[in-house]
């Protein structure tokens, strides 16, 4: 376990109702958005718990966020080394168990989830070959997952997108299956920013507890520090969804 090296205390008043729910935020060497993910958890009213890649236990968290970054530098293939971290074995087991640990993989976290085979497919370099940072419109295709229940089906949200290897690919059979099983959770709207197959921005596992996406909802949780459209807080729903699920489930 490590304490996240924060600047400032970010003392957001937790929702008394939700604060009992603990969401783990994993830090690998090279993880970049861990402090942001922890802030998003607090903004949503929950308690963020720092998890270290070398930990061998999950510290009794109720859910896990694997944030963005370049774990181990991603010099090999994004996420290819991280899947072997001790903590990942625990996360894989817990996600596949009957307890269905909710897991959200954002950007590099999504890449780690595909490398871990918690989610199908893979990410390759953007079709335009450049790093791209922009405010991206997404359509919520499935609002029944653990992480999207606070959205309306078909709702369009704007969250930042920032990556170099964001092009989602899978074979046709897998893509057909994802669509047939309603596991495409988000699609890019207006413009496909990286060449992802079938405009897919995010997917889930069959149970809906594991969700991965390339865009960054944790960067759209606080007015003035996110996208300029709407209030810039369209990403908050990910975190309130899972908190409500957890609290609802324990009550």
């Amino acid at each position, binding site marked *: 376990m490590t304490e996240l090296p924060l600047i*400032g205390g970010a*003392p957001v008043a937790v929702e008394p109702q939700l604060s009992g729910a603990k969401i783990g935020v994993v830090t690998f060497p090279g993880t*970049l*958005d861990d402090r942001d993910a922890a802030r998003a958890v607090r903004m949503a009213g929950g308690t963020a718990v720092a998890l270290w890649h070398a930990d061998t236990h999950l510290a009794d968290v109720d859910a896990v966020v694997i944030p963005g970054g*370049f774990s181990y530098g991603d010099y090999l293939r994004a996420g290819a080394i991280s899947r072997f971290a001790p903590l990942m074995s625990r996360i894989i087991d817990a996600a596949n168990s009957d307890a269905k640990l909710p897991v959200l993989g954002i950007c590099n976290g999504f890449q780690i989830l595909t490398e871990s085979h918690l989610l199908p497919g893979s990410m390759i370099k953007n079709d335009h070959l*450049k790093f791209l*940072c922009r405010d991206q419109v997404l359509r919520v295709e499935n609002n029944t997952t653990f992480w999207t229940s606070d959205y309306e089906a078909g709702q369009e949200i704007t969250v930042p997108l920032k990556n170099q290897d964001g092009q989602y690919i899978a074979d046709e059979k897998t893509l057909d299956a994802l669509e047939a099983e309603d596991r495409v959770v988000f699609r890019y709207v207006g413009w496909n920013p990286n060449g992802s197959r079938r405009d897919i921005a995010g997917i889930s596992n069959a149970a809906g507890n594991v969700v991965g996406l390339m865009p960054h909802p*944790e*960067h759209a949780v606080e007015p003035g520090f996110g996208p300029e459209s709407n209030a810039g807080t369209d990403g908050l729903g990910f975190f309130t969804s899972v908190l409500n699920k957890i609290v609802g489930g324990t009550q």
Partner: protein
Amino acid sequence: MTTSAETVGKKFNIDTVENAAKTPDTELPWAELGLKENEFDEVVKVLGRRPTGAELAMYSVMWSEHCSYKSSKNHLRQFGEKVTEEMKKDMLVGIGENAGVTNLGDGWAVTFKIESHNSPSFVEPYQGAATGIGGIVRDIISMGARPVAVMDPLRFGAIDHPDTARVMHGAVAGIGGYGNSLGLPNIGGEMVFDSVYQGNPLVNALAVGVMRHEDIRLANASGKGNKVVLFGARTGGDGIGGASVLASESFDDTKPSKRPAVQVGDPFAEKVLIECCLELFKGSLVEGIQDLGAAGISCATSELASNGDGGMQVELTSVLLRDPTLTPGEILMSESQERMMAVVTPENIAAFEAVMDKWAVEYSWLGEVTDTGRLIITWEGEVIVDVDPRTVAHDGPVYDRPFARPSWQDSVQADTFTGSVQDAGRPSSSGELAAAITELIASPNMCSKAWITKQYDRYVGGNTAMAFPDDAGVVRVDEETGLGVALATDANGRYTYLDPYHGAQLALAEAYRNVATSGAVPMAVSDCLNFGSPEDPDVMWQLAEAIRGLSDACMELGVPVTGGNVSLYNQTGTVPIHPSPVVAVLGKLDDVARRTPSGWKEDGQAIYLLGTTAAELDGSEWSNLRGHLGGLPPKVDLSIERQLGEILINASRDGMIDAAHDLSEGGLAAALVESSLRYGVGARIALEELVERDGVDLFTALFSESQGRAIVSVPRSEEVRFKDMCTARGFAHLRIGVVDAAGGKLEINGVDELSLDALNEAHEATLPKYFG
């Protein structure tokens, strides 16, 4: 566990101090290493004998222009001298450390610095630019701060020159590739195209970091018996300027040849190093710390020892190597990236090692602090360096280089744009003016920089309150109070070419204005002085004048220079670049939620122009478009800048304005278009009163680059209060129009209607057209 040189065995004929004393007549390659004859003689005098090969390596790099500031030092002193007590009150650490530190209040401190990485970025743009970011970030870490943002002022050759795309693609990708991987938002910078930078692009990098007062760390080695440790990446053969010469130390020819002089960056190693250092600081596990940049271990050991109270002894074979064939001199000179050196008390060794192990960072204990006053470096126990560290790090040569106002300066200044051949057919009809505005905002220097900035992560960290294309980048420091900092960098090589003294002041004035425009109170300055060869008296005059001008202006505006960098020899053959003093200003915002963006949004808000307009087209972007450079740059009036700043800051704090944009390159025309395109909200503008009041024609009103001006949008409810404030302060203000949210156009009386769609397309198309 490691491959140190020791395990490979002794392959070199080690030139020990003992040997040097015995063999005074040995020929040494001092000239090839860049030392002048008088400098070599000085080394011999200082040591009382000839230097060893290792000592020669150290002196040659540490006495280089880059490390010693030998040509500029006599002039740079003015930054330390022209400082009032008032200016010192918030300066916690001044010039001379890795970066200056400014007090932000509430126990917070901020450190920032700008540096050049010009030559490497021309030779190998990706790695050159990447390691430029890496180096400046390590300067920030070594002050004890968490880096929180970066910025990058860029100057390239002509946009249509075939080589420009190579440099542009590489440098931008390198800045993105490295900075994005560190988790540091890129919040702004500059981009200028000019053929003077064709063979010598300017790639400057700025980093800013924050810390609690108690976390400030300094680069010094104190306390006898404390241990010296090198950690981070291993030392390799990259970045050795004199490798070919030093290879003569070797007795075998099996070693790799033609090692790159440009360093290669590993951003992952740097990111881990950042977190690792912050954990060390948090646990108070280091006494002193120094990053390894230019001159590598030579610099780190001599500066730490020189700043400390004693001496230092290190065993060079303990250095972990990437290439076991490196000679002692090469190890001392290597500029391998992502390395840090620290001083640790014996009690903290175990805790230090635990942090290293946690982050899987390699380290090796090299030696310890002594009380001898000497820097002793051994190779398998044999002394190869025995020097007074001050003579290496601080008491290098200083030159009073001759300088004189160039013979051509008068004729350049006499060649004004108005009435010149290039001024023929100046736009005047409504159609011509509309076309001129469109041409201006699509031009290489005025077009949208989105092609560049969308390759940078501006969100990471979650504290970016404002970034490009707004006038200043704004980062929150304290999440509880909203306390934050604003930063802007500016330079105008054309103005500075016409008049170096005032050109440098104009750079400061613009950066100061940009920071104030965001609502922040300007507090401190860092500068990166990019000039040609100091051995050319013309260039030396430009440098001397720019420093004099900048230091005078800093004193008048009350903002101290807390650090910076001088980059000389920026020229191709005998042709220097335009003198380009890049000035970064840092300001403070008590609550970043109050920041002012550069674009308007609300329909019906009044648009005011602050300041007055004179016929000042010399050096302007319009004259640049017409291929003219001559005359005198716009007049500088620092008291006006200060008053304007106060108005913008007060108006922001008291909620009197919703948007503010400074007028600089491209004048009012560029500012009106940029403020409209920022949120895609147009305006109706009438300049008849301005033309009447200031006695200029409509073209001049739009394209003049008179200083001390800004446009603001004022909510109806605040208009009286805003006008009263300007009137009470006696500051020129004029209502020039109104925000028009529905129209989708920018209407200026006397100018054909400009649709925002067409303006946007023209503004955005330029960089993609040239760079894909």
